[in-house]
């Protein structure tokens, strides 16, 4: 080291300083991202926390910002998300089982796979156009919660299929082989061994899909959900609104009172999403701790 030339040492010091500066820059980028998150949450809390109350959750919207509540929107969201979850879960898990356990690797299964990947990248508003044409107009469901739920089901279907495929692929083949050796049919092996093993992973995907459906606004606007709904949905063909649309509507109004109501609505929405994501994380941890088969 003593032999290092002064020139080398000078350049070494410079490179080390550059390295430290770059490290600082990277840290700064992460800090900016985190700061934005904190800023967003603090701003929302300051705007809306005082408006969140039991009354806010159980009141219908009103022309008076201080009276306005989210009952209709919350119930509408629950209806839409429940329909979407049931339909997308059934279709998505079935499709994933077919692709992973039955389909032969040929051009047909490859087309289905490429198609699913690309569907996941289609802008959500395009699903709204699809829902409007197919469910609302062609199938004559009208601008109902059922049409909204089915539109959302198609939107989240790729998410569930991809998650379920990964979960099924992670089940060790030895389990299936053991079942086959005991004389089980393919479906018996899937139903009794593969699915129970894959279920935590599948459910994680379902929860992610549901939180996506809960936060989506654009497709339901295009599909024709209402913005002012002073009634609770009373059946699958009832007209409806959802929480994000209610928030959008209040945000677009000029009065500060409605902006506070929008912030309060956002807090309720984020609380719901947080609960679901916490559930997903708990499930994922349970899933990851599972001993290798």
């Amino acid at each position: 080291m003593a032999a290092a030339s002064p020139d080398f040492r000078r350049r070494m010091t410079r490179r080390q300083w550059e390295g430290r500066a770059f490290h600082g820059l990277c840290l700064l980028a992460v800090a900016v991202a985190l700061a934005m998150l904190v800023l967003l949450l603090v701003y929302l809390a300051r705007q809306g926390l005082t408006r969140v109350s039991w009354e806010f959750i159980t009141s219908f919207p009103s022309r008076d910002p201080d009276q306005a509540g989210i009952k209709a929107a919350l119930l509408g969201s629950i209806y839409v998300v429940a329909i979407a979850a049931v339909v997308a879960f059934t279709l998505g898990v079935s499709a994933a089982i077919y692709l992973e356990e039955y389909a032969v690797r040929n051009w047909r299964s490859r087309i289905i796979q490429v198609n699913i990947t690309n569907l996941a990248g289609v802008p959500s508003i395009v699903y709204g156009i699809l829902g409007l044409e197919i469910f609302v107009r062609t199938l004559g469901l009208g601008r109902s919660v059922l049409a909204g739920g089915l539109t959302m089901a198609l939107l989240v279907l790729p998410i569930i299929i991809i998650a379920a495929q990964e979960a099924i692929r992670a089940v060790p083949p030895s389990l299936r082989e053991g079942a086959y050796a005991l004389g089980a049919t393919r479906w018996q092996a899937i139903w009794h061994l593969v699915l129970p093993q894959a279920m935590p992973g599948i459910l994680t995907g379902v929860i992610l899909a549901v939180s996506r459906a809960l936060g989506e606004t654009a497709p339901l606007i295009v599909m024709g959900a209402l913005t002012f709904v002073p009634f609770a949905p009373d059946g699958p063909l009832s007209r409806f609104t959802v929480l994000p649309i209610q928030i959008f509507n209040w945000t677009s109004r000029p009065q500060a009172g409605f902006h506070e109501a929008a912030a309060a609505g956002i807090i309720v929405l984020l609380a719901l999403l947080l609960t679901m994501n916490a559930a997903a994380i708990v499930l994922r941890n349970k899933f990851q701790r599972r001993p290798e088969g």
Partner: protein
Amino acid sequence: MARDTRSLRTSITAKALSLLPRHWKRLLWERLIRLTLAAAAVVSVLTTVGIVSVLLFEAVLFFQEVSILEFLTGTRWTPLFASQHFGILPLITATIITSAGAMLVALPLGLLSAIYLSEYAPDPVRRGLKPVLEVLAGIPTVVYGYFALLFVTPLLRQISPNVSVFNGLSASIVMGIMILPMVSSLSEDAMRAVPRSLREGAYALGSTKLEVSTRVVIPAALSGIAAAFILAISRAVGETMIVAIAAGQNPTFTLNPFVPIETMTAYIVQVSMGDTPTGTLEFKTIFAVGLTLFLLTLMMNLLSQYVVRRFREEYE
């Protein structure tokens, strides 16, 4: 005891007798299940077919009344006014402003965050940070719209009086924050897939961490990083609520980020919220715009997949 044995024997005989039809029944059952599952897989293909045919069908009707040339090259978009013009360019420029602006935010911040997570952060820090950053991606876009219109825009207006209440700048900054985790997560995955031996080789030659990150890891992970960027642009182009709330509803042919503009997605929302009757030429515009949007994002998604496949560096 004897009775038990006998009853056991008869039940075995009964089973043996019924084995053949049961076997058939089971085979049939298996067939049926297989078919049902395949039908579910076909639904995803039908969704694509549905999207393409709905958009094409209505867009063809639209283009029977409006020339494609006017649609693609016109600089005035006024389908809802008395003097109708159907030039989509104002919607395109608006989409370019907001997406490019979003990328200017998300690209450097996302890439630097990814480098930090992949190369610098100790493992527990990385495992804690990544999900927190991903929270940003999980926040509904309507929430970002609210934040853009009511927090970021007033702030920008304090800095410069030239900024309008509705503007592309505020929407693109907030959209950049929204897609940042997508850039950072996907880029980080690509960087972590670069084998350790490459880094160790560079360190053995006396490189600093900066040199290893920028001259070894990033070039090796470039296909994954590029794919992440393209996906992020596609996401920004298709993003709706932030621009519908914060960027305005004025289809102006401009690249000025301070004035109200209208993106393709915001236009579709505007028509859907209004009382334009379905079936009219005005209403059919949303299918033509939707088709343009769908094709643009599809091309970018395919390009992203192609980049990953074609330019992946394999180290095996």
